[in-house]
């Protein structure tokens, strides 16, 4: 068992200045709940169970009625199971009531009139049911008739056949015949459990496992969800549909046999109206009438509820017809619920997905005021462009010792520009995703944080290798946060670990504007061990973005774009595992941090705060309305079109600020890398990388590309600070 490098993850939520209540995002929780697949059946099912509780509470129905209810439930439950399978396959089977009647009558006739041995009657009844189901299946799957009209017709036809059979053999049927098998089926028990219940339980388990765990079951669900897609994926649609009706018929035949055995007599009324009971039960159980979704377990709960209602009407002494009325009303209500709930569940989940939170920022520095360290200037304007018009959105870059520049591209590429004068460049690697932060590891291999995919190492031949793309899912979370989807910046520490920021567990890397508007602590910082294992070291951080190992290698700096601050996470020494502030209340939203050659740090701002954007952080409800009612293009965000790069030191002092006052060449600088007296300016939505010559007094002896604490980097003592 490996010990974790950090005893516990740091919860960065207090940095937002919010109260405990601000931790909760009720709308989003609702959205996540609605987004769960199991919610589809859970709501109708919950209501159905509530209904049965209501019935037991208001009528004399009690635990004493349980055997009776279960007896009825097993026979009709078999029908419900068959009907569920048909519904999941996208069809409907109304003829099951008649099949029950015909099978039960047929079994009686075979046994009493034709004197067949029971060993033959039992399988014959089931086979007869299957054969009747096969008639449905043939008409629907082969002749392509509509399931509804087909099974309606066969309902009448099979019912007529049963009546004919009854009148032909009515005399012989009246003679009771003793047989051990009949008794066993009707009144026997297996280990104290009535036979019918056992049969039902076995069928239930088999069908449930088949439907949820077998290829056959998945095929049925696939056909029910979308026939055309199923066919195009090579599923034999006709055969699957045919099978569902055969199964439904076989189960109806079994139900008929059990009914005949239990009652010991039969008449043409047996099975009449059972299709309605079964249909009500499955709809109550949350099986979708549109096909593709449903479970036999839920249908079973549905049939029990229906039987409780029936028992309730009997117990209160109401007329038999009122039961039908209640049943029909319940069916109607739940069919409407199925339609509306199915329709609105996803829509509601989608609408509530973005749930903006409140954060508190300090007073805003006025950068337009002349004479301050922040005052707007033109230092960045004349940076010479690299790859102008070729690069699309290089969020970060890395420069090797030979001066080759590697940068990302929003099309999922990593470019290489050989030396400073190469304007053509070549595609060095194809990572896919959205390549964002770049860094060098100990062996001078390129590490890239690929948004949407994870952390990749790129070998000298341009072959990308996955380093890490997941962490342990946090417990008790409805939302699956195990994937590293929005990895943004990364850096390597002296012990070879990679620290990477994952700015959101919810939104994709390309949707960073959602994070800017939502302002919730959705992000985290993850440590990737040299052995490839991952752990979250800072959780609940608002848009953690820039990651940079400090010059002494004992801490890493973490920039929070959402909170306009930079914090230091100690990874060695007495304060290991502690987070302490370095810069607070910055006038902009900081992005990637990188070391400078003179022992300080470069920090660009992805956007600058404005009075209006600051005001909006106090109004989460307005931002929610904005995300719902106003198109993305009209969302109000901080000023992203200005570029500002700042240099600061370990003590958190702002040493200098550079701007591009024209706003044309380098709007929105997201990363700066220093190499050989030049500064490389990257922008995630720009079509170039800028190369700016630094003044000689701004350049020091440190190689910012080396991992601090490794032999290639001169120690800090050499640098005169």
């Amino acid at each position, binding site marked *: 068992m490996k010990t974790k490098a950090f005893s516990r993850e740091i919860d960065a939520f207090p940095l937002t200045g919010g109260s405990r209540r601000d931790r909760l995002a009720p709308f989003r929780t609702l959205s996540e709940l609605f987004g769960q697949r199991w919610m589809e059946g859970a709501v109708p099912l919950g209501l159905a169970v509530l209904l049965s509780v209501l019935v037991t509470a208001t009528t004399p129905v009690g635990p004493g009625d349980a055997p009776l209810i279960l007896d009825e439930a097993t026979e009709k439950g078999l029908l419900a199971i068959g009907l569920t399978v048909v519904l999941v396959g996208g069809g409907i089977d109304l003829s099951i009531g008649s099949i029950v009647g015909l099978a039960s009558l047929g079994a009686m006739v075979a046994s009493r009139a034709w004197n067949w041995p029971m060993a033959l009657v039992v399988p014959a009844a089931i086979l007869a049911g299957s054969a009747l189901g096969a008639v449905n299946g043939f008409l629907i799957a082969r002749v392509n008739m509509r399931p509804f009209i087909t099974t309606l017709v066969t309902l009448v036809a099979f019912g007529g056949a049963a009546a004919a059979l009854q009148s032909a053999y009515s005399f012989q049927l009246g003679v009771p015949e003793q047989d051990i098998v009949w008794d066993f089926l009707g009144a026997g028990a297996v280990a104290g459990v009535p036979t019918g219940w056992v049969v039902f339980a076995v069928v239930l388990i088999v069908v449930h496992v088949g439907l949820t765990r077998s290829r056959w079951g998945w095929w049925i669900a696939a056909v029910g969800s979308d026939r055309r897609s199923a066919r195009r994926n090579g599923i034999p649609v006709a055969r699957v549909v045919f099978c569902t009706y055969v199964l439904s018929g076989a189960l109806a035949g079994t139900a008929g046999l059990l009914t005949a055995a239990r009652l010991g007599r039969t008449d043409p009324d047996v099975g009449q109206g059972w299709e309605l009971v079964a249909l009500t039960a499955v709809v109550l159980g949350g099986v979708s009438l549109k096909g593709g979704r449903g479970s036999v377990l839920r249908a079973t709960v549905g049939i029990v509820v229906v039987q409780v209602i029936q028992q309730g009407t009997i117990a209160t002494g109401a007329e038999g017809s009122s039961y039908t009325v209640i049943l029909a009303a319940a069916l109607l209500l739940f069919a409407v619920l199925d339609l509306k709930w199915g329709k609105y569940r996803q829509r509601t989940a989608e609408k509530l997905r973005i749930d903006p939170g409140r954060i508190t920022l300090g007073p805003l520095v006025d*950068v337009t005021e002349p004479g301050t360290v922040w005052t707007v200037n033109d230092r960045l304007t004349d940076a010479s462009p690299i790859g102008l018009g070729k690069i*699309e959105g290089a969020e970060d870059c890395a420069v090797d010792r030979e001066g080759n520049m590697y940068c990302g591209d929003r099309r999922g590429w990593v470019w290489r520009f050989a030396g400073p004068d190469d304007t053509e460049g070549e595609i060095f690697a194809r990572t896919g995703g959205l390549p964002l932060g770049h860094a060098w590891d100990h062996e001078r291999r390129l590490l890239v944080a690929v948004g949407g995919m994870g952390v990749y190492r790129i070998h000298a031949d341009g072959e990308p290798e996955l380093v890490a793309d997941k962490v342990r899912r946090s417990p008790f979370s409805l939302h699956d946060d195990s994937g590293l989807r929005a990895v943004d910046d990364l850096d390597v520490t002296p012990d070879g670990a990679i620290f990477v920021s994952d700015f959101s567990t919810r939104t994709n890397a390309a949707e960073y504007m959602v994070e800017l508007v939502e302002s919730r602590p959705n992000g985290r910082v993850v440590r990737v061990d040299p052995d490839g294992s991952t752990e979250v070291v800072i959780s609940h951080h608002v848009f953690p973005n820039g990651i940079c190992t400090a010059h002494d290698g004992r801490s890493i700096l973490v920039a929070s774009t959402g909170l306009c601050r930079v914090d230091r996470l100690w990874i060695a020494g007495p304060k290991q595992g502690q987070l302490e502030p370095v810069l607070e209340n910055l006038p902009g939203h900081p992005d990637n941090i990188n070391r400078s050659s003179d022992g300080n740090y470069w920090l660009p701002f992805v956007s600058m705060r404005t009075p209006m*954007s600051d005001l909006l952080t106090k109004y989460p409800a307005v931002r929610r309305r*904005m995300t719902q009612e*106003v198109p993305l293009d*009209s969302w*109000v965000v901080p000023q992203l*079109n200005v570029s500002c790069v700042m240099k600061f030191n370990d003590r958190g002092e702002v040493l200098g600020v550079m701007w591009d006052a024209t706003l044309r060449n380098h709007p*929105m600088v997201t990363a700066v890398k220093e190499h050989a007296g030049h500064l490389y300016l990257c922008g995630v939505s720009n079509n170039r990388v800028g190369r700016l010559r630094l003044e000689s007094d701004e350049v020091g002896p440190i190689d910012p590309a080396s991992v601090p604490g490794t032999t290639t980097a001169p120690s800090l003592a050499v640098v005169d600070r």
Partner: protein
Amino acid sequence: MNRTLAVIREWINPDWARHRTVPPMEAGLRPNRRLDEAHVLLPAEAYTPDDLVLTESGTVMFSSEESIFELRGDEVRVVAALGGKVGVLVPSGSGVVAAVEGVGLVSVGASGETEELCADRAVSSCVTDAARLPDGSLLVTIGSSHESPGGWARALLRGDRSGRIVRVDGPRVRIEAEGLGWPAGIEVASDTDVLVSLSCDHRIERRMTASLGKPSARLAANLPVYPGRIAATDDGWWFVAPYPRNRFTELLLDEPQLASEMMRTIAPEDWFVPRLRCTTPYTDTLQMGQLRVLGVIKPWAPARSYGLAFRLDGSGRVAESLHSRVDGERHGITGVAVRGGRVVVAAQGYRNLLQPQVANEKAVTQ
């Protein structure tokens, strides 16, 4: 509570939802670059023209800050300095009648002699437009009884409805209509009626001269802009639109608490309302669509300032329009003058006079 109810209603049936919307610029308002391609008549950034008139001799008289200037050929000369911000100009013989903030209506001759026409309190502040009726009297629109002409944004945010139409006949003044949402333009449509553009209602109305208190017909409603001054031409009327409507501003107007805190705590130039020009990006917030992507700001991004003048024909249909979009800078058109097929607009935001090519000026030679 009402909002919660509205949300529930919308959840039940999306058709029941009612939101303030901004219609797209389509049909006659389909964007073009005709203002960006127009002739520039003044030296750059030298004046802030608010309104203008074209005289018979072809000279342009325009108001800028506290003076009236005359443009003859390429030469600009001061006609008169009037000691208050000069707004609307109405032709009067060879000279003009000017509305001077804090003073009233002043008659200015072609050679610069001034004469005070009316200094009544009713017309001394926030005069937005004026039109001369056939009987010689002036109809004057007052944007708001509480604000100065620069207070348009505050009036919009406060839902100010204290705009008026005032009839000025020599020294006599009569308030003809009250309770209007910033009437920003008025022009004679026929012997018996006038057109009024109501800025805050995004609407253009026809009103009878005899009963100005109520509209007789609606010429255009729910415009995607806040309409302004009007100039009559042979085949309809030219309108200017100083401000475009913005979908977030519409949302802001529906969130009174945020709007009032914004007015209380933020400098007016940083309010999220439409304006004549966007000057300081460093304090200006951005809308996502205005992001510069791969070096380009898309012209169809949501606009905070916009350049637009359009001509309505007699039936209220937009016959043609002149645009300067988000990627342009010839924004904030506040005045328009037409004579003999020549159209000149005053771009207060761009701080210049523009003479675009228009459909009905082909016969005119420079």
